[in-house]
């Protein structure tokens, strides 16, 4: 019996959400008086012993080129075999693109109950109850997993990491790897920019900005904050901004530490994509904009005047 945490990597680097999953899994292991083990698939440039800082005692690594791309069926089968080999009873993933693709397959192969989008540690006093977000962040469900093996995907940015100073041991695993089920024709990674789903700060613009030519000030503000840029649905639909920047019910759902909404009225469908943000700032010239009700801080004012001033004020603070 142990807790196995799947550590996702991309181009040889461990993902930020994976460290959070490691810390979460280690906390689950502590609750159960057992060990937190990590699994890394593929060739990784980053040091794996650092996972000890997040409470992992041992890291298993399988180095094969096939793991350079996520083939959901191949990953699910390999992870399932490792779960059996190390006798894990709880398997943790991040609720990211990879976790969403792979965890359901692992759950089926192990006949394990699956809770996706978990946001708190399990409660063990009456069953094994995991809290997850439902209704696009508008509510939580408490879900009891009754199967012997349990699979959880953790919402990014929902668990506070407490680091310790420990080194994990790293052990290479040999397993048979099934043949690829898909053939990768091309990959197109967005480089340079901060990916939206991983950003700590997101600066987002809406119809109030009047046209794509006015996005310079959004980008300037994002730049000083090392933030990602996003937009509302009408903006993406009008092709002012690319679709992958659309946050909301039917776009990307995000949970950054800080979400700055500029010229966005705050329709319920938009809020569904951003309501898990820790702090929300709304800048809108309409004092009746519904977004103010969901905001922590607000400025009623003309974005074209406020935003450049805000960028300047942040620069000034950073220079001190």
């Amino acid at each position, binding site marked *: 019996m142990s807790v196995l945490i799947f550590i996702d990597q991309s181009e040889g680097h461990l993902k930020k959400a994976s460290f959070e999953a490691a810390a979460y899994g280690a906390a689950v292991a502590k609750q159960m008086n057992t060990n937190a083990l990590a699994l890394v698939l593929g060739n990784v440039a980053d040091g794996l012993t650092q996972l000890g800082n997040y409470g992992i005692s041992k890291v298993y690594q399988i180095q094969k080129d096939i793991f350079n791309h*996520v083939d*959901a*069926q191949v990953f*699910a089968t390999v992870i399932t075999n490792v779960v059996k080999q190390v006798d894990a009873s709880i398997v943790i993933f991040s609720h990211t*693109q*990879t976790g969403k693709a*792979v*965890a*359901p*397959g692992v*759950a*089926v*192969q192990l006949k*394990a*109950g*699956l*809770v*996706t989008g978990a946001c708190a540690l399990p409660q063990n006093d009456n069953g094994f109850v995991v*809290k*997850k977000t*439902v*209704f696009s962040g508008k509510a*939580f*469900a*408490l*879900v*009891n997993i009754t199967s012997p093996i349990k699979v959880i995907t953790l919402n990014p940015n929902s668990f506070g990491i407490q680091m310790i100073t420990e080194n994990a041991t790293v052990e290479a695993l040999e397993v048979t790897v099934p043949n690829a*089920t*898909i053939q*990768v*024709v*091309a*990959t*197109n*990674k*967005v480089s340079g920019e901060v*990916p939206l789903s*991983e950003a*700590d*700060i997101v600066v987002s613009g809406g119809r109030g900005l009047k046209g794509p030519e006015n996005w310079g000030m959004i980008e300037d503000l994002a730049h000083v904050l090392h933030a990602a840029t996003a937009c509302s649905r009408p903006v993406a639909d009008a092709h002012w901004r690319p*679709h992958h920047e*659309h946050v909301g*019910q*039917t*776009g990307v759902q995000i949970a950054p530490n*800080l979400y700055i909404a500029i010229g966005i009225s705050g329709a*319920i*469908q938009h809020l569904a994509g951003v*309501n898990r943000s820790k*702090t929300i*700032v709304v800048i809108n010239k309409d004092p009746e904009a519904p977004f103010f009700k969901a*905001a*922590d*801080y*607000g*400025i009623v004012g*003309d974005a074209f005047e406020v935003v450049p001033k805000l960028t300047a*004020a*942040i620069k000034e*603070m950073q220079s001190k």
Partner: protein
Amino acid sequence: MKILVCISKTPDTTSKIAFKNNNAQFEDAGVQWIINPYDEWYTLVKAIELKEKDPSVILHLITVGGADCDAIIRKALALGGDEAIRVDTESDDSYVIASQIAAVAKEGNYDLIFTGKETIDYNGSAIGGMLAAKLQVPYLSLATQFELNGSEAKVTREIEGGEEVDAVTLPAVISCQKGMAEQRIPNMRGIMAARTKPLKVVPPVAIEALTHIVAYELPPAKAGVKLVPADDVATLVKLLHEEAKVI
């Protein structure tokens, strides 16, 4: 070419979210039910486009639920599709739902199974991956573009930090999101035709649930917005730095 599209019933996106029976159940009084937007806009419409291109395509819709799903499945049939199947059982466990769909899918020998990337109520993102594992076929998640070429498909999909274009030999399970297709409004001809399209109600297979929802919770109410005058952005910066500690 046989395509199966998975359809789920969800509350309208503007529904007030509340719970009853000691927070054990969703309060459905006054709730307008819709086809899960991911299932409708990006998944079903894409399948309809494939059938429009090649009329020999057989397009079936499936849902798992009680008789209260029939209005939703008729609405889906009004958009397109040859017939619908409803597996007559209810469950809040994704493993049970996926097992029901897999049983029908196995029997129907479908080349392609489409699901939405998630439902807007349970936000599970699980059915597609589970179906693929049950059926032991490839799974391509979060697809934004899809091209069919005989028994091969080219799928553009969202991955960590970008996108990937994959080639796959069918059968396969695809989960669909924004980009696959555009929302359509059913026309009168479609609505009339949907009334006479077959809706088969089939009994469920026996599967034990592996998870159970024991209760729901609402998030704590926001403390209320702190407004800062438009000519005093310095105060906002100070609050974000010292109070919220986010910059």
